[in-house]
């Protein structure tokens, strides 16, 4: 098994949701992740005892032991496992309870393909950022805004050192709050706006240190949005249009983050139920045709399985195409996914 392979454990009492998320995560990671699923916390605990799990994704509302209680339990036993809470109803109190119990991220349970894409991207980011105390490495085509968002959502404390074209600055984040920014002699919102308007450069995470002063107030969402608005405003007034800030950081340490390829982008998705009906389709020109193809694959695999001992069909990967196409199967349905070509 490749050293890059990460194990993700999904815990949810909703079997259908679990199935879809497991299929999508396995597919979207290009089979790099080993995605396990547990429908109960008891099964999840058994899995944690037998597998080296890197990331666990927990449904907040589960019977017997709810997500927060389960989080508290595994935080004590498995503090190094990254933890994400998924919930259909994220409010302030549940978010606080989950983060205090050890969750790195609290995300809305996805109900659309875009939502699933966002959750998968978050999973990927969290796996990439694992074991990165004092990390310094390469993050190509990741905007500073993205990094700030991830760190704030994760309620981390750190200092982002940013440099580009002679400009140098620092952004201080304390427990997920933007508290100070400085760029040259400028501090506060103006400094943050200057740093977020950079078209490229380098940034580096360093351990949190108290800033000389607190120059930023308000939510990080507002501060980042305001910076984006100012940048757009400047562009519309004839200033040189700035591309989105993109960080190009040199790799100076061999870290797991540097070895993880980007997640492919899903361009078509069709989910079929046990009876073959299309349950969900996204960007598919002809969902019934996809459903028919999935049914044919199942039929064909059953004919093969009836004569030779191969067991049931789990997935079919179509190769040699401009895009990556995967069909996944389980007793509860099938998923057809088309996406950007596989890595490498």
């Amino acid at each position, binding site marked *: 098994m490749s050293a890059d392979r990460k194990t993700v454990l999904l815990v949810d009492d909703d079997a259908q949701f679990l199935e879809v998320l497991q299929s999508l995560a396995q597919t979207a990671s290009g089979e790099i992740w080993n995605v396990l699923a547990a429908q109960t916390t008891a099964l999840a605990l058994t899995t944690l005892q037998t597998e080296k799990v890197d990331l666990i994704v927990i449904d907040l509302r589960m019977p017997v032991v709810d997500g927060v209680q389960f989080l508290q339990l595994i935080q004590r036993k498995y503090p190094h496992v990254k933890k994400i809470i998924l919930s259909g109803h994220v409010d302030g109190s549940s978010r606080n309870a989950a983060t205090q119990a050890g969750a790195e991220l609290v995300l809305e349970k996805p109900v659309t393909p875009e939502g699933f894409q966002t959750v998968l991207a978050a999973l990927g980011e969290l796996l990439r950022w694992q074991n990165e105390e004092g990390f310094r490495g390469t993050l190509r085509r990741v905007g500073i805004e993205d990094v700030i968002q991830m760190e704030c959502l994760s309620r981390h404390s750190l200092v982002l050192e940013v440099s580009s074209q002679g400009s140098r600055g620092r952004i201080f984040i304390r427990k997920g709050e933007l508290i100070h920014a400085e760029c040259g002699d400028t501090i506060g919102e103006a400094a943050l706006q200057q740093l977020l308007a950079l078209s490229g450069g380098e940034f580096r995470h360093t351990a949190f240190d108290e800033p000389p002063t607190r120059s930023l107030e308000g939510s990080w969402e507002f501060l980042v949005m305001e910076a984006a608005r100012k940048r757009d405003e400047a562009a519309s007034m004839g200033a040189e249009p700035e591309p989105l800030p993109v960080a190009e950081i040199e790799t100076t340490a061999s870290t797991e983050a540097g070895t993880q390829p980007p997640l492919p982008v899903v361009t078509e998705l069709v989910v079929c139920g046990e009876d073959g009906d299309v349950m969900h389709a996204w960007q598919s020109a002809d969902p019934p045709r996809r459903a*028919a193809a999935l049914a*044919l694959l199942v039929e*064909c695999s059953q004919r*093969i399985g009836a004569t*030779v*001992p191969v067991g049931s069909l789990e*997935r079919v990967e*179509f190769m040699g195409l401009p895009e990556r196409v995967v069909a996944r199967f389980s007793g509860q349905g099938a998923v057809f996914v088309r996406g950007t070509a596989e890595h490498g």
Partner: protein
Amino acid sequence: MNSSANQFLLSWVEGTFSLGEVLVVGGILADGSPFRHGATTEFVACMEDAWWISLAEALDRLTANDCDAPRSMWVFEKALLWIAKRVDGAWIGVFTPREISDADREALHSRLVEFIALP
């Protein structure tokens, strides 16, 4: 594809795949005739021409449903089925154990690409 081309392709299959490494190899030539090469005891059903003809029909139906690619890998619980299709209509199916090393996987992949490019 004429008979000498068929013979060349069959020779290539026999020289390329050895039992023990794969569970069974078979397929359909460009003229529609089936071929197979060795089979472990458990895959003895694949020694019947009808088995490959039946699979060919299923693959044709998939193609008609816009579900087609030069190569595909079917992941079953206990085995993998690798399929490669040539532009002349010939195709090959190779069953291997489910767990194979990365090196074996790469080697198999190269052979299937070679099959597609054979004259």
